[in-house]
């Protein structure tokens, strides 16, 4: 049963300054489904549009980001809604926090630096639920924190008194306190120390086990995907080029880009020479014709330059957008 269905989503940044019109085709025809209770990862290099995809899907899009076409349908416990149809900020706010929650990249974006953590929690919960009963509030928060292995002492501190890792974990606790059905995380582990990163990943896993929510995780770090996600989608230049179960992708990737991506990662204990993917991702204002990867692909042919390959299912649950597959068939 899918909790989120995205169909043919197109979201561009359109800006106009002094006569220069600029169209950044960040999300250019993306379709995918996320199943209930799974951890779904969206991977890709910077500039591929994954963060924009997240923004467009969770209803946080603001000008200059414009959604040109497509559907984003949520199948919550009690209702189904097309989030793009919600014009009212109020309606969007209602689902935020309770049904959908966001974990942003920088914890300091969420925690008010001049307020104690406790206050931030109160503000957040108070915005969505009525907390008249002080005891009830405390017990709810206490239970949540202890389930996550966080000390109650943290509540009395100011954000700057905590270490970076602790702050990030508090932010995650805050984002999940109302037991949202879906949690969106945009690069939650980037810029964190490696030990803290591990702590954060373990925390996310713990929460998911406890609350049985669905997690959609965006990061460029393939190793994090390997350790955390059930299924992943690889994005390139605004489109999804491959999608599948995490073992399938890591052991049997089909798209040349995915393969290049995996081969360029260093592994501990292995000093054998490795190479980066050649060239660099295209600018989203000026994408190549046909398959967007063809300038960097060693298997590209004339066909690849002319036509855009569609994301098609090759095996059970494994989708690829590449003409190579068709040829091989």
């Amino acid at each position, binding site marked *: 049963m899918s909790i989120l269905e995205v169909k043919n989503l197109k979201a561009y940044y359109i*800006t106009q*300054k*002094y006569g*220069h019109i*600029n169209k950044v085709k960040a999300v250019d025809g993306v379709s995918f489904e996320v199943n209930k209770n799974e951890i779904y990862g969206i991977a890709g290099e910077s500039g591929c549009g994954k963060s924009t995809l997240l923004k467009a899907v969770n209803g946080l899009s603001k000008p200059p980001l414009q959604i040109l076409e497509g559907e984003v349908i949520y199948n919550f416990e009690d209702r189904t809604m097309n989030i793009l149809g919600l014009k009212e900020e109020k309606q969007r706010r209602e689902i935020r926090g309770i049904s959908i929650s966001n974990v942003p990249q920088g914890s300091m974006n969420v925690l008010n630096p001049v307020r104690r953590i406790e206050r931030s929690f109160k503000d957040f919960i108070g915005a969505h639920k009525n907390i008249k009963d002080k005891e009830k509030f405390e017990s709810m928060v206490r239970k949540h924190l202890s389930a996550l292995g966080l000390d109650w002492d943290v509540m009395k501190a100011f954000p700057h008194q905590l270490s970076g890792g602790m702050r990030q974990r508090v932010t995650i606790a805050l984002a999940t306190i109302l037991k949202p059905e879906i949690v969106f995380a945009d690069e939650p582990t980037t810029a964190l120390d490696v030990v803290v990163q591990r702590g954060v990943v373990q925390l996310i896993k713990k929460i998911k086990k406890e609350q049985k929510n669905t997690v959609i995780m965006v990061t460029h770090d393939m190793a994090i995907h390997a350790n955390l996600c059930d299924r992943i989608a690889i994005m390139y230049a605004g489109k999804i080029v491959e999608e599948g179960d995490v073992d399938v992708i890591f052991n049997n990737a089909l798209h040349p880009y995915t393969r290049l991506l995996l081969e360029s990662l260093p592994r501990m204990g292995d000093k054998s020479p490795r190479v980066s993917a050649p060239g660099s991702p295209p600018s989203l204002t000026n994408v190549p014709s046909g398959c967007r990867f063809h300038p960097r692909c060693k298997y590209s042919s004339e066909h690849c330059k002319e036509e855009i390959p569609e994301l098609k299912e090759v095996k059970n649950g494994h989708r690829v957008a590449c003409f190579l597959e068709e040829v091989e068939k």
Partner: protein
Amino acid sequence: MFKGIKELLKYDKRFLIGFIVISFFILVSIISLFSPYNLRAWNQVPRDMPVSSQYLLGTNSLGQDILWRAMAAVKNSLILGVVAAVISRVIAIILGLFAGYKGGIFDRIIMTFNDSFIVIPLFPVLILIASILRSSMNLVVLGVIIGLFGWAWDARLFRSQILSLKEREFTKTALLSGMSSGKIIAKEHLPYIIPLIMAATINNIIWVIGMEVTLSILGLTSLNIPTIGTMIYWSMEYQALFLGRYNWILTPVIICIVLIISLYLLSTSISKYLDPRTRLQMIEEE
């Protein structure tokens, strides 16, 4: 630069309006040099004549043609504004840059000096000076005096911009590339500081015009020189408002308002255009 002006004219309505109005005023100022009347004398023409084809804006109770007077007033106010603004900019830039770049004890001394100027109630001081110098006050003297007092806020502004620029990593890179301090200031930092200076200059002109009007209304400047302020002064002296001589009092008031608004429009549109972030976006698109 001309490309910039063209672009601004085409796409930014505010700049367009401001540019047209100020160009018009400059034209007016040039024309005023050809005034057929002696602008300092009274009784050049019949008094209190209403608007007519001979006296396009009528005449005032001192026997002066309002139209020609108004044009001269525009010229004088603009000159005053520019002179005073330039003087105070130069002081602000020198002090601000020096304090920012040298730092340490120089910074402390300069900023203390600077802050004392911010704290001094400018207005009473100017009134005091103006009343002492009243007899020898002419436009230039007035401009210099106002200029000597108008730099304190902006010096701090420039200094803080420089402090932040000093910390940027590209400053380190420039140092490591062997560039001398002078070169770093000129090539690395100036592109950030210039938009600030331009906006600050235009804002200062506005302030100076306002200051002149205030001082003149209080009768503290050389009242025979036609400026926006002195026109208002005389019209009030002769009860123009009560006597219904609207052409006399409204002319300088409307000119003042229009002038200030158009300067403001210019200031905001230019500084937005020159803002490094806007320029970055435009670079990316090309």
